[in-house]
């Protein structure tokens, strides 16, 4: 029973990682850049909901909508200002700029919302599920996160593989010049990718803060990194992979903490990651790409 409980704890944590990783992997897979600022967009989403709900007393639904709009606009702006000028530069330059953006968002949030943490009010009102006479509890937030991540996986997969815009994204991810020659507007496609990715970050922010309700300017940083790990674990650019990777990372982290060593739980997660990548060098769901000689 204890094991089951622990496992469910792991899935709860993992489902949050999964939602974050989905936004990560989209931008990562299409724009081919490690958007290290993704975690900070999550934080902005959290503050947006908080401001709307607590400061302005809006209803949760309205607040969520507001957060999605804020993050989407933010994502598009960041892309335009910081990443677009580097379209032709090396991916490392963009990575460093993303780090700059991450610092920027964190410090901007610090100036606006000050240093004291805020407690987030959960936007989820799904009742918790109690099993085995209350021995095992599945929180409403967990249910919400799992449902959300499944919905996102399905929706994104359908979108990318079956719509014109989605195919444009795939083409852009492979070869920007060739994509232009197909009549694809590379800039607007990348903007769209960022818009969706940032909208997903807002959703992730709400779920993250609903489950773990303290909110500071660095709230998004560590989950962002963990989600990055999850995205790679699942296979870069693979949408179902991001979800699976997220959940597995959560489960390993919690099992490691419960059964091996709480202090070394993170080390264990990373060790498992390394082992898996040794066996499967492109992640769990990653496609093995053979370069034709």
């Amino acid at each position, binding site marked *: 029973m204890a094991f089951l409980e622990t496992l469910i704890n792991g899935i709860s944590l993992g489902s949050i990682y999964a939602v974050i990783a989905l936004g990560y992997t989209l931008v990562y897979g299409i724009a081919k850049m490690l958007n290290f600022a993704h975690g900070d967009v999550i934080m902005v989403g959290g503050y947006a909901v908080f401001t709307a709900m607590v400061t302005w007393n809006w209803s949760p639904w309205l607040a969520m909508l507001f957060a999605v709009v804020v993050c989407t606009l933010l994502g598009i702006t960041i892309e335009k200002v910081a990443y677009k000028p580097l379209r032709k530069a090396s991916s490392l330059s963009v990575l460093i700029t993303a780090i700059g953006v991450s610092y920027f968002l964190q410090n901007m949030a610090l100036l606006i919302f000050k240093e004291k943490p805020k407690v987030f009010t959960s936007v989820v009102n799904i009742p918790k599920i109690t099993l085995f006479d209350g021995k095992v509890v599945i929180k409403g937030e967990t249910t919400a996160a799992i449902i959300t991540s499944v919905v996102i996986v399905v929706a994104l997969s359908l979108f990318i593989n079956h719509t014109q815009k989605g195919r*444009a994204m*795939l*083409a852009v991810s492979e070869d920007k*010049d060739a994509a*232009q*020659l*197909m*009549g*694809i507007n590379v800039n607007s496609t990348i903007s769209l990718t960022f818009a969706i990715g940032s909208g997903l970050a807002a959703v992730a922010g709400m779920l993250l803060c609903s489950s773990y309700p303290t909110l500071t300017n660095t709230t998004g940083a560590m989950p962002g990194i963990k989600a990055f790990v999850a995205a790679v674990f699942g296979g870069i650019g693979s949408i179902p992979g991001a979800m699976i990777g997220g959940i597995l990372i959560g489960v390993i982290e919690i099992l490691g903490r419960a059964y091996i060593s709480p202090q070394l739980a993170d080390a264990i997660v990373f060790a498992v990651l390394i082992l898996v990548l040794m066996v499967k060098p492109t992640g769990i769901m990653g496609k093995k790409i053979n370069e*034709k000689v």
Partner: protein
Amino acid sequence: MAMLEIKDLCVNYGVIKALKGITFEVNEGEVIALIGANGAGKTTTLHTITGLLNARSGSIVLDGKDITKTPAHKIVKMGIAHVPEGRRIFQNLTVLDNIRLGAFTRKDKDGIAQDIEKVYKLFPRLEERKTQIAGTLSGGEQQMLAMGRALMSKPRIVVMDEPSMGLSPILVSEIFDIIQSIRQQGTTVLLVEQNAKKALSIADRAYVLETGKIVLSGKASDLINDESVKKAYLGE
């Protein structure tokens, strides 16, 4: 009025001057050949026309409209398709996905389906391999895919960068036949070729490019008999 007019086009790569003011024109329905040695600037010219490179000065006019600063994706919509050097197919997508992307600017589902069939007819090998990941095609197969993909946008002008490169002799002849049939269907062709003899034999007019300048131009049938051209590009 010419369909496509290039005037005094200059293009630089950093400090390297690749094009030093070239002027030429392409009329509707023509096949124009652009020939020249390695590094003469042929590819650069095509890239600039289709918007992948920015001109430093000069102008490109399509149907009387200046498109010098128009972004590449809009130029496609205006009716120019590009078969790029090095094929530039989408390596990790399937052959069929590549072909479909060629029709990205089109909305007519039925028309697209028909044109896919046409492409398959032109290149039966592509139909056999439609689910293969494009990156694993042989060199020649990739070239066919690049051609087929470009035709999917129903262009009024196709610019082709060395379409015969890497093709077997039988296919080279076929490609030139295809170019001619494309022209017969009313599409204009701007052709860059190393295989100058074949190119001149199907072209209406031709320009000879040397280190970023046009040094010779005229009717293809005249150039093919020009001594200097013969010596420099036909290997005779």
